[in-house]
Every structure is written in structure tokens, then in C-alpha cells.
């Protein structure tokens, strides 16, 4: 039998030694609860399983030339990333409860936490959360705990998928969730101001936002802090090679989706939620945290720490129910950023922005195509306003092997002609030119 070591003879010998039969070992299950044979096909050989799944993989269209982003990006993954992350001492281990035998993953998580802090200009980070959306929800819950206030204001340029998630999570908890309409692609300060008062726990914004527009939030952090509220910023880590950091804009909690840091798109997961904050809030932060300490001989070592916040100690009084982090995805992000290094990340971010800028200028030459938010700066994603419905164009371009972008109307009623286009370093100038050409003839 696959993956079962003991031979039938050994199983017999073991049963004899303990003086039991197999049926006796299951005698605690009442007879009326014992189930008949499952309606599941007989097992397959490895070769059969791999052939079957290879043919299922072939039924997916994974070779499109993609301009699809929306918070999830097709970045190049250097070979050394999977080579290191697939070392099985890492991936077949569990949460490092026994630090002496888990220094590898513990030190890696400490380095990951440090890297997230350096990237975002924050002071402490946790060992990761499930994804960018649950990280934003956890940030909101954390702000509610810190301030003891009931209201959270979320701008509608924050990912609509994340806003859907937040609605679900907050619906039954007596939390006042306010979603404010944006104006010309950016959070509308007047709208936000209306909801900022001594009931407000936090304002949540995103940079670059779902429309790809860049913003500066220092005024917002002042506004929030003046009434005792926190500023939560969700961000796209690759952009931080170039773009102003949330920390330097006065953010109190920074979260985001780390998929772009060497993690495959993989049809939606596993991904990586990161979270960083200021030192004063660390005891209100959810999730695992690794700290550096020493052993009896004064040697440096790493442990899970501040565990009195957590479910296995605090049970129903814990800061969160979260148990695992996304350890392997955090390791992936750390390896990826270490390979790129200080200069590499800057160059990569610039290349993305340059190619996106080129694409934007090239696409604007198409008659009838304009920018939806012409006054805004963007990093590597922008909204094109087409002369016809975006859905129609996307459909047509799929036939030419292009994923042209995302139709904003799916989440923003009234934006039928708006197409969200993302450009990463993987797209070549030639592909961009061809994309522009195919789009032009399709209009």
C-alpha cells in the first residue's frame, strides 16, 4: 500500500505483541457508525496520477500573454528561489515549537520580519498571515482592539475583493464599516473627513490602489491621528522598490499581499499576507512572532515569542484565532528579496514602472483610447477607458492569446468601458507593441 511502511506480516506481529486484533482497536466506534466501503475509485500508480493531472493541467490556458493584475502579478521567479524553498528540511517541518531543532525556519522568519520592516519602514512585523485580504481584516480588528472604537472607514480604491472579505468578517460583530467613494482615482479626503471622529478606529487605504493610482497619505495620517484613529495601508511590495513607504507617510499598520515576491500565481494560493506595525502596538498584533534571544552559553538563537497573545495560551481571549503562519511563503519572499538585493529591487521596480509607462503611452496612441485617470501617477498598472465595453475587447483578445486586463465593471458599476492593465518586467516591448496592435484592430 502506498506510503504505508509496515508489511502485513509486521502489522500482524505488532498486533500480536500488544495482544489486540485490528477490529478490537476500532471497537470503540459503535457498530452503527462504521461506514461501508467508500465510493472512491481504487488507488492509482504514481505514473497514472501524474498523467491524469498533467492532462488536467493541459485543460488550463496558462500560456496567455498576460496584462492581468488586480493585486496579483506575473513576476519572474529566479531558479534559486524554488531550489532553496524546496529543501525538505524546511517544507516538511511544522511550526517551530522546539526551537533547538528549528533554528533554520526561526532565523528565516526573523530575517523575513526584518525584511518586511525595512521594506515598509515599520518597526515590527509578524511571521505572516494567510493572504493580503485576511491581513487587512486582521489589521482592522487590531485597530479596533487598540482604540476600543467601533467604526472603520475603508476607501473604495481598496481591492474590492478584500472589501468583500471584510464585509463578511465584520457583518456579525457590531462593527460600523463605512466604505467611502473615491474621486478621480484617489481616496476623497472630504468623504473620509466626514466619517473621522472619536468613534473611528481606523482608515484603510491602498497604495498603489486598485486602479493602479499612486497617492501620498501623510495628510490622511495627520487627519486620522488628530482624532485618535489609526491609518492602515495595504501595499504592493514590489512597488516599494520605488514608491514612498507607508511608514514614512505615517501609517500605523501596514499590510499587503506578498505573492509578487517569488510566489507563483497558482490559481489563487497559497499566498502571503504580511503585516507590520509600530513597536507600541506589537502586543495587539495577531499571528506568530519570532524574537532573537540567547541560550545558556550566550549564543544567539531564535524563538517564537509574545505567545501570550495567542490562541493556544489565551483561547477565547486571544488576539486572533490564527494558528499557523504561511511559513514557506514567508521563506519564499525572504529568499526572493535576498537574491534581488538592495539594488536589484530598485531596478526591478523601475523596470516594471518603465515598461508600464511605455505601454501606457503606446496604448494611448490608439484612437478613442484614453486614460481613465489622466492626472494620476501610476506604478505598473493603469485604467484605460476604451470606446467600447471592456468585456467585449477582453473576450476578443483572449482569442489572440492575450489576457488584456481586468474589466472594472465587475466590481465598479458604471465602469463598463474601463480596463485595468498591469505590466510586469516579464512583458517584453515586443509583446506590448503586439498587444497594442491587436487591441487597435479589435476596436
Amino acid at each position, binding site marked *: 500500500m502506498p506510503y504505508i511502511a509496515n508489511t502485513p506480516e509486521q502489522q500482524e506481529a505488532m498486533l500480536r505483541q500488544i495482544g489486540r486484533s485490528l477490529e478490537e482497536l476500532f471497537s470503540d*466506534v459503535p457498530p452503527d457508525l462504521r461506514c461501508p466501503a467508500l465510493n472512491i475509485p481504487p488507488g492509482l500508480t504514481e505514473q497514472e496520477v501524474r498523467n491524469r493531472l498533467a492532462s488536467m493541467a493541459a485543460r488550463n490556458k496558462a500560456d496567455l500573454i498576460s496584462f492581468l493584475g488586480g493585486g496579483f502579478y506575473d513576476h519572474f521567479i529566479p531558479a534559486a528561489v524554488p531550489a532553496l524553498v524546496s529543501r525538505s*528540511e524546511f517544507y516538511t517541518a*511544522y511550526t517551530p515549537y522546539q526551537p533547538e531543532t528549528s533554528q533554520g525556519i526561526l532565523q528565516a522568519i526573523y530575517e523575513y520580519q526584518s525584511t518586511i520592516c525595512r521594506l515598509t519602514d515599520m518597526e515590527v512585523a509578524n511571521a505572516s498571515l494567510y493572504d493580503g485580504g485576511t491581513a487587512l481584516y486582521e489589521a482592522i480588528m487590531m485597530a479596533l482592539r487598540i482604540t476600543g472604537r467601533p467604526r472603520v472607514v475603508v476607501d473604495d480604491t481598496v481591492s474590492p475583493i478584500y472589501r468583500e472579505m471584510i464585509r463578511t468578517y465584520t457583518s456579525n460583530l457590531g462593527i460600523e464599516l463605512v466604505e467611502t467613494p473615491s474621486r478621480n482615482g484617489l481616496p476623497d479626503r472630504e468623504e473620509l473627513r466626514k466619517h473621522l471622529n472619536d468613534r473611528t478606529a481606523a482608515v484603510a487605504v491602498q497604495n498603489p490602489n486598485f486602479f493602479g493610482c499612486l497617492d501620498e497619505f501623510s495628510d490622511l495620517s495627520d487627519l486620522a491621528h488628530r482624532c485618535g484613529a489609526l491609518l492602515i495601508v495595504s501595499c504592493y511590495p514590489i512597488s516599494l522598490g520605488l*514608491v514612498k513607504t507607508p511608514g514614512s507617510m505615517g501609517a500605523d499598520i501596514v499590510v499587503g499581499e506578498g505573492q509578487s515576491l517569488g510566489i507563483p500565481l497558482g490559481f489563487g494560493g497559497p499566498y502571503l499576507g504580511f503585516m507590520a506595525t509600530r513597536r507600541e502596538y506589537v502586543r495587539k498584533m495577531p499571528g506568530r512572532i519570532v524574537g532573537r534571544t540567547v541560550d545558556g552559553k550566550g549564543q544567539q538563537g531564535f524563538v517564537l515569542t509574545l505567545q501570550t497573545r495567542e490562541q493556544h495560551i489565551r483561547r477565547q481571549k486571544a488576539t486572533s*484565532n*490564527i*494558528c*499557523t503562519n*504561511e511559513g514557506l511563503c514567508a521563506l519564499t519572499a525572504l*529568499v526572493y528579496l535576498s537574491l534581488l538585493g538592495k539594488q536589484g529591487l530598485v531596478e526591478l521596480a523601475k523596470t516594471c514602472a518603465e515598461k508600464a509607462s511605455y505601454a501606457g503611452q503606446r496604448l494611448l496612441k490608439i484612437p478613442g483610447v484614453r486614460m481613465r485617470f489622466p492626472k494620476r501617477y501610476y506604478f505598473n498598472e493603469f485604467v484605460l477607458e476604451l470606446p467600447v465595453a471592456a468585456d467585449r475587447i477582453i473576450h476578443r483578445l483572449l482569442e489572440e492569446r492575450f489576457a488584456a486586463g481586468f474589466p472594472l465593471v465587475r466590481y465598479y458599476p458604471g465602469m463598463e468601458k474601463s480596463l485595468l492593465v498591469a505590466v510586469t518586467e516579464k512583458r517584453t516591448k515586443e509583446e506590448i507593441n503586439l498587444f497594442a496592435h491587436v487591441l487597435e484592430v479589435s476596436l
Partner: protein
Amino acid sequence: MKVIFEKSVPGRRGVRPARQEGCPPPQIGPRLLRDRPAELPELSELDVVRHFTELSRRNFGVDSGFYPLGSCTMKYNPKMAEQIAAYAGFSSLHPLLPQLPGGEMLVQGALAVLHEMDLALREICGMAAFTLQPLAGAHGELTGAMIIAAYHNHRGNRKTTILIPDSAHGTNPASAAIAGYQVQVIPSDADGHMDVEALRAALSDHVAGLMLTNPNTLGLFDPHIRQISDLVHGVDGLMYYDGANLNPLLGRCRPGDMGFDIVHVNLHKTFATPHGGGGPGAGPVGVCEKLVKYLPISLVGEGQDGSYFLDYGRPKSIGYIAPFYGNFSVILRAYAYILTLGREGLRRVAENATLNANYVMENLRPYYDLPYGSICKHECVFSARRQAKRGVRALDIAKALIDRGFHPPTVYFPLTVPEAMMIEPTETESKETLDAFIEAMIEIARLAETRPEDITRCPTTTVVGRLDETRAARQPDLASLK
């Protein structure tokens, strides 16, 4: 060992990013730009490879040796699944593709995996439908608790409380609390099962449901489970099954048949996907017929022409709990595992997991106190209270096992057993491995009697000794900042 930032050499380069191909510089307003680069390390590719290879050598996984960490089901993770997860047809698939017009036809293979996994889990657990979206076991619990709330809200029930036994995993009460419920703890009886009389006394119209693991964290199957389900259903409460301990029941007994209304399954435990040093996992949630309408958005459906689609139009649903369809590549690995084992293999998993646990339990019974049970399921829980009288605590025994090449069991859990040592061998371990572990445990028990200091000074073979956790918590050093 130095942290990676201490190895940095100014100007040294690792991998080179893609060329910018002469594209014009981006026009971004200067006030939107960062004023200095992030202080990432500056290293060659080889520096990075050596650093992480060295770190991997300081880590212990299932591939390194026996890992009987109770309640975590640290079974072997088949290599085949890693290869399958890396197939480009899966790994490079953008999750927004099916949201494009006509996009579902671009991902039929992936949707088929999700659909077939749903069907397999229904059959294994005896439930009506599954959502594969929950991203971890605790995330599944929260999803389940929100489904409980949705059910009662729609029925107009005023329910405030979820009942949880004292032996439960910490995530259970935390998840219930985060979903907005009060938690009432039900004590265990002298046999280690839930005290049915205490349950009866706790039941009232305020009870929204009961969260239970069966077999429980002592490794004991609760023979009163149908009675418990009936009692909870009697006050229109829902039965929630924490699937952490499903492994010994595969193909032998199903949560649905025990009367559970909601079930979460840990794919990273029962279905052999890697634990990843603490994630990613996956915690699909299955429900009975009357709760299907509350499952999160979206669900995979099968059209009349045999093609698959994503159903977003589900008005009673609790809504989005994850951005997409779950931790897809984890689900994929688990699906490959189920295909490989088939119906017979799954049943053999349950039998051998149970046999291995009972074999360890019987062989250690003379040497350590066993507070509960004559037979166990997937794990057994000993107490080191006898050894503790000699100054050797469960933690010391754990450290002594590390020196002998084994990962320790879970210690100090469940909370109902003093000096607990929770041993879950899993079915993938051989008799030879179990015998070596048993021998080490016996040797440690003897040393605890004769030379306790030989145990309390362990570990001595590791890269660091016991670490100062008090200092870590009191003077937190949580990041190397520049």
C-alpha cells in the same frame, strides 16, 4: 550563525532583474517616491544559496526523521505532489482568469480538480457539500462559526454561546469568540470523554452549537457521539467537527454519520500536504444539506454540458472569506494523494495510524503514566508526572529526544493532562522507527530514575542550547532594523 544582513557587502549583486529594453523613465511625481532604497542585503547568488542551505541544515522535518508531534499528523509528504503542483498549467494560472468574460473556459482543468476534490471530501466525511476556500484549519473553524451564525440569524434564533470541551484545541474557542460568540467550556469525565451530564446541564436555547474533535485530543473516540449530537440538535444547536484528528477514521467512520452538521478537514494533516514550517495549509469546510446555501462565495458548479463554472449568485451565502478558491496548490497535492490511495488505501491509513499509535502506547505503558484509555486512535497521551517527581519534566524529555534524533511529541497539551506528552506516530512510520523511538523513551525513563541530570541538561547536540524565552518576551528583539 550570522543573520543575512550581517553578511551584506556594499555593491555585491545577486540575480539581475529583466532588462528595461530602453523604455522611457516613468513619470512619477517625486513626492510619491521613496527617498532611499530599502536596506536589503547585498549578496551574490551563491552567498544566498549557502545561507539558506545552512539554515535548512538547522531545521528538522519529516524527511529528517521521526516527527510524532501529537495532533499535527506529521506523515510523509509524497514527492510526487510537489512535481504536480509545479506543472505550469496550474502554477502560472492567474486567479482572476475565470472572472473574465468567458474566462471559466480557460481554467476547466483547475475547476475540475476543485470539483472532484469536493466530491471526494463529501464521500470521505459524509457531508452534502464542501467549500475549499478556507486557508487553514483555524480559518475553516472561523468559516464554520460564521455559518452557524448565518443559520441562526436566518431562523431568527437568538443564540449567544458555543460549547467547547476542555480538551479542545485553542483555536476552537478563539474562532468561536472571533465569530462573536461566548464560549462555555464543558469538562471531561473520568474516562477523558466529554461529560454528557455536564453537557446536558449546559444546554439551553442560547446554545448555538458545539465544537468537537472526535477522536479527541487524548486520541479517544467518543462512543456517546450520537447521543451528544441528538442533545445539541434538541436545542436547535449545530454540531461542528474539528477535523484535526480525522486520520484514524478514513474509510471507517464519517463525521456526517455521527451527526455533525459542519466539518473542517486539515489537508496538511490527513491528506499529506507539507506543513511548510508552519503553513501554508488548507482547511476545507463541509456542511449538511440544510447549510449548503450558507457556504462562502464562490462554489464550483457543473453545467449540463459537463463544463465547470463558478457560482457567485448565492444570496444566502456568508460571502467572501478568501480572495479566490482556496490554497489551490495545497488542494491539488491533497487531490493527488487521494487519487493515489483510493478507497482501500484510505482505509489502510486509518488502520495503520491506529495500530502504530496503540503499539507505541502499549510499549510505553509500563514506563510512563497513561491517564486515560485502554485503546486509542491516532495518538496517545502520556503524563510525565512520575518523572516530574524526580525533577524530569515533559519538556526535559522532549529535549532528550532531540538529542536522540527524534522530534519530540507535543508537550503540555491537552491542558487536561499534567505534564502531557502527546504522541502521534502516523501510518507512514515503520515498526523499526517506532521500536527505536520506544527504546529511546524507555532509556529516558530509566535515566529519569537514575541520573535525572543527564536528561535535564539536554539538548547537547543541537546548534543552540535551551533558549532564554523570558528574555525574548521581556526585551523583544523582533527585527534587525537599519
